[in-house]
């Protein structure tokens, strides 16, 4: 019997793994909050080999962004990014974080070419719903990035730290 109920118990546990953490309350206009966390992402990468070891690639990543801190930006998001990485000039891209209500945070990212140990900075440019009009910045470091022969890519970003500011009263909301 145990063998039959084990998977069912696990499915239930997985479903109940949602955080007991209460999402942060509504911020005051103009309030700035800090956040930190990790981002585990996987996706695909297509690389163009250029001359003398020069490589350019386009990549698409999605994964779970888990944040810590009771009064941060939120408990977590699904993070999605598309980017362009050049082994000589670095990387750039666009990122969308979506929360459980479908509200989004938009950011632009730039930094070293994606790879283990590379450093990335992001500029938060706005959002939707409860994140409408937010601005801010963040940084992260890729703890590791693994790529398979089939072009699948997977990585974990740690040291994700940043701050976000809600628009002041009367400020236009994008």
């Amino acid at each position: 019997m145990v063998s039959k109920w084990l998977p069912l118990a696990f499915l239930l546990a997985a479903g109940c793994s949602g955080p007991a953490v209460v999402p942060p309350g509504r911020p005051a206009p103009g309030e700035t909050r800090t956040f930190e966390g990790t981002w585990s992402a996987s996706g695909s990468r297509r690389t163009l080999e250029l001359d003398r070891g020069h490589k350019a690639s386009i990549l698409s990543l999605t994964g779970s962004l888990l944040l810590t801190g009771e009064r941060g930006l939120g408990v977590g998001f699904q993070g999605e990014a598309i980017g362009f990485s050049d082994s000589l000039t670095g990387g750039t891209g666009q990122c969308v974080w979506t929360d459980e209500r479908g509200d989004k945070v938009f950011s632009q990212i730039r930094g070293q070419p994606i790879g283990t140990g590379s450093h990335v900075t992001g500029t938060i440019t706005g959002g939707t719903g409860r994140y409408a009009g937010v601005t801010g910045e963040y940084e992260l470091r890729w703890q590791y990035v693994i790529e398979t022969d089939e072009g699948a890519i997977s990585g974990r970003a740690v040291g994700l730290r940043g701050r976000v500011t809600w628009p002041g009263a009367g400020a236009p909301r994008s």
Partner: protein
Amino acid sequence: MTAPGSNRRALLGRPATFALALGLWFTPIPSGLTSQAWHLFAIFAAAIFSVIVAAFPLLTAAMLAAAAAVLTGTIAPAKAFAGFANGSVLLVVVAFLVASSVVKSGLGRRISFLVVSAFGRSTLGLAYSIFLTDAAIAPAFPSNTARSGVLFPIVLSLAEGAGSTPHDEKKRRVGGYLMFCGMASLAVSSALWLTATSVNPIGVEIARQFGLKIDFGSWLLAASVPALAAALLLPVVLYWLFPPSVRATPDAPAAARAALRSMGPLTRDEKVVAVAFLLMVTGWVTAGTLKLDLTAVAFGGLGALLATSVLTLDDIAQEGGTLATYLWLAVLFAMSGQLNELGFMSYVGGRLSSALEGVAWPAVYVALLVLYVLMHYLFVSQSSQVLALLGVFVDVGLRAGVPTPLMAFALLFASSYFSTITPQGGSQNVIFVGSGYLTQGELYKLGALTTSFCLLVFLLLGTPWLFLVVR
């Protein structure tokens, strides 16, 4: 024909399945997940639940789940149906068709007589011959799916040689026992050799990011004691868990030798199949070096068997079971991949593992290992789980104070032996599952028990061994 008991289970299980799906769907979405990820989990969990409680067969559950996921707009059709073009899924299907040529040509019968003449005094002896054969060929096969394509025809021929058929309730147990031994053997041999599955090098690369360098020799040394112990004990454990109807066959070796003599020399079809297999095996073994696609090699073999009329279009048309396997495997593969892509897997893994912060490292080590193995209920691909979770779990373990080699090796080995936990837990299982010798209930039960047994062996024997040799 359906048994009254299974009708009752279906009657109870079906409303429970729909209740679970709707209950999860309308549960408030946990913070940090999107509605898309949560709703897909509701559909996927309900599908797996329905199979476990015998409400629906795997195929029915997969079809309903695919329809629900697309029609509710949870995932795009292109994502839901992506599994149908996946190389691993196609490799399973083609290997299935190729395997039928081994049986049809008579080569399988000949091989089974050879094996029985050496090991056939008991069913247990046959099981050991499967483990031995697999362990011996595994280091040369970088794909355990391809290896299952080689092992399956031998196991099938052994089952048929023992008079076992899937449709005879009493006789099928010998075949069922041997089929599960095939699955378990692939799981353990993949843990024994670094080069026995494509998952291992990916895991080694992740471990390297945490400062642990692993090569062929250090892997073999670390795996040797627990993996060989599991390989030695599993045939006996499975024999006890799923007793075959025929156990002792003292006269079988002599009978097999006589049968071999009466078969005479190899026929034309046997020779063609032997050459085709030899070429396919060569292609699979050298695939990494020569940059050959594994599935294309299998397609080449199937094409050759059709061109030489060893297999005919009528033979292919009769393989309805293969179509059913293709349909459910492709759907579940894509759905599990989407759960991963939507961040659900790393979310659950991250949440479960972060709950262990502040706990003593030995407890963290055991808990992470158990959670990592249980997480495989949600995955249809071993490499997906390694890519999504291995690094997260190693990192949590290290931060709790677990020694790096201990945590990394334990999770790396688990990434192989957890493959039998569900019928869809590794594409190498599927060809054995599709043989029809085992019911879905038996597959889930044996899967859970076999995986638990391997977990125990690797914990109790593997942990002190790792301390001794790699710390």
